[in-house]
């Protein structure tokens, strides 16, 4: 008897607690009575319900991002690639969502992903690799258009965006990619070397050409100077020769003769009939020299 009041208080408190619920910001709630939906889209705030009779399920209305495991695709140009994607989605139709997934997000993504992946694979199959690599937002619109309504109908989920994430060669193709990269790098190094050799040769050739020109110009200038000297000398000789042209010619010839043999080492053949030998013979005859043959 003396416990009656506390018991009543406790029961009332329990009823009160069960009859009050709070929906947080970024969430919404559905109210059901014995499994049948009675109200959906209950906004954030403090709400009341019939205790123990009505059930409340709170769900996220925020945007959720799910990343999907990369899937193997083949592009139109036959390249095998592993395409990763992420989906931004939101629960739009809680009744369908709870029926389809019992409110479990993991189930939701597991059911949603294959649909998106198939659509994506189909899209990739019709696109060149370069297009897949360059893909921007438009691919999301395409996929959304293809499976958006189906996902909404089946899962109560609104697909906000599908974006292509990583696009990489499949693991088993990495070796061949690396091999090709090595080949290209070697070729590039070879090109660098070849161009460098050519450039160095060009530098040398240009330098040689410049030097040749300098030398040619110098030779030209030198020829002019020499010619000038010769002209001056000729003038000097000409002035002198006027005094006695005949003797000057003779005297110059002797001078030239002397100069021609001044180096030594030449062989001079004196014939017996040469004036020099005759002069000697003439002298020997008068002196009775023994050297006569």
């Amino acid at each position: 008897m003396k416990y009656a009041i506390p018991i009543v208080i406790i029961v009332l408190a329990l009823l009160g607690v069960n009859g009050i619920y709070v929906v947080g910001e970024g969430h919404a709630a559905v109210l059901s009575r014995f499994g049948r939906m009675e109200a959906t889209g209950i906004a954030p705030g403090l709400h009341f319900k019939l205790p123990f009779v009505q059930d409340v399920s709170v769900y996220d209305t925020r945007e959720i991002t799910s990343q999907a495991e990369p899937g193997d695709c083949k592009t139109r140009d036959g390249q095998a690639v592993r395409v990763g994607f992420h989906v931004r989605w939101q629960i739009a139709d809680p009744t369908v969502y709870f029926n389809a997934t019992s409110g479990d997000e993991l189930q939701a993504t597991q059911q949603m992903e294959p649909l998106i992946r198939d659509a994506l694979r189909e899209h990739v199959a019709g696109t060149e690799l370069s297009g897949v690599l360059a893909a921007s937002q438009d691919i999301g619109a395409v996929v959304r258009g293809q499976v958006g309504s189906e996902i909404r109908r089946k899962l109560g989920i609104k697909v906000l965006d599908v974006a292509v994430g990583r696009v990489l060669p499949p693991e088993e193709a990495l070796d061949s990619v690396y091999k090709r990269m090595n080949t290209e790098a070697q070729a590039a190094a070879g090109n660098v070397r070849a161009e460098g050799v050519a450039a160095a040769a060009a530098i040398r050739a240009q330098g040689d050409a410049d030097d040749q020109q300098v030398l040619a110009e110098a030779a030209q200038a030198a020829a002019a100077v020499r010619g000038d000297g010769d002209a001056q000398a000729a003038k000097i000789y000409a002035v002198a020769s006027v005094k006695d042209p005949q003797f000057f010619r003779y005297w110059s010839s002797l001078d030239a003769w002397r100069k021609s043999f001044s180096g030594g080492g030449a062989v001079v053949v004196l014939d017996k009939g040469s004036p020099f030998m005759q002069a000697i013979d003439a002298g020997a005859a008068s002196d009775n020299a023994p050297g006569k043959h």
Partner: protein
Amino acid sequence: MPWKEPGEKPREPRGREPWGQGGQGGGPDLEAWFRTARRRLGPFGRGPLGALALVVLLIALWFAIGGWTSIGEQQEGVLLRFGRFEQVLQPGLHAHFPSPIDEVEKVDMGRVRTVNDEARLLTSDDQLVLVDYDVHYKVTNAREFLYATRDAEDVVRNAATSAARAAVGTHPLQCLIDSLDLPCPSGRVGNDKLASDLLAQMQAALTDAHGAIGVAVTDVSVQNIGVPSDVKPTFDAIAKAHDEVKTAKTAAEAAVAGNKVKARNQATSIKTDAEAYRRQVVADANAAVARFDRILPQYQAAPQVTRHRLWLDTMQAVLIKNHVVVNTGSGNVIVQFPAQHPEVAPASAEGSASAGSAAEPAASTSVAVPVTSGPGVQGVD
């Protein structure tokens, strides 16, 4: 513990305690407990007014402890009342209902948040590069940041992944890695250009039609663009090739510079030589003319004698310095060698002796002597 203590022998109030005769209806345990509690509460325990005062005090305490929030500089607070958004609190001190009723979520607005990623990415020529980049972003709207998406950072990260894939995937490898210094017809990209591309793409993606998420990407920095370690050695070889080329070019330039100096020197000496030649021929001409002027009066005085003398002088000067072969007309040949080469003379003399007539080998050598000696010839004159 106070409520166990009075169990069997409740402590009787002493002397003149007015509430001593209080509860006679409740159980002895509860009664004792209330009594003890009230006693300890002092004046608040006295009568119904006291109880009200106690409640008021507790509420005041509740408000005093949980009824205010200080929002720091560069922060914003999102005030929720029973879970529902109420208002955004700016920096300063704010009073509100205490905890179960109001909740305040503080968000750092000034802090630059960073998402870092080092990703392996495909280039447009199907090669792989490693790109290490940071995305810096700030919260621009605290409410959206908290409640528009479940995880705004995740959205930023995914947008970065997409943007990086697209930014790298539209350029060939040689345009992306500056340090390779390879030809790139479409224009180099490099760290800074890639960063600005990424920034533009991310801003476009995040301010797209899918609703604001309360963040703004402020900056993207690309730390490094490299090749995967599996192929690093071959790509390092490109840098080595560049080094070699640089060395070769430097060597070529040095050689050219050296040759240039040589050529200039040579050109100078050609000109100097020419100048020297000019002076020489003029000097020679002057000297010759001077000699001619000297000899001319002699000649004019005695033309025949002077002519002959000049001729002999010349012959002598020539014959002294050179090999002389004298054809005597009788089949014997006299060979005379200049005095400057005495060591050659005997050997060649023997050779000529054996080659010539064997009859008078001794005579031919002896004959050579007077020819060689200057005075012999001069004597003839």
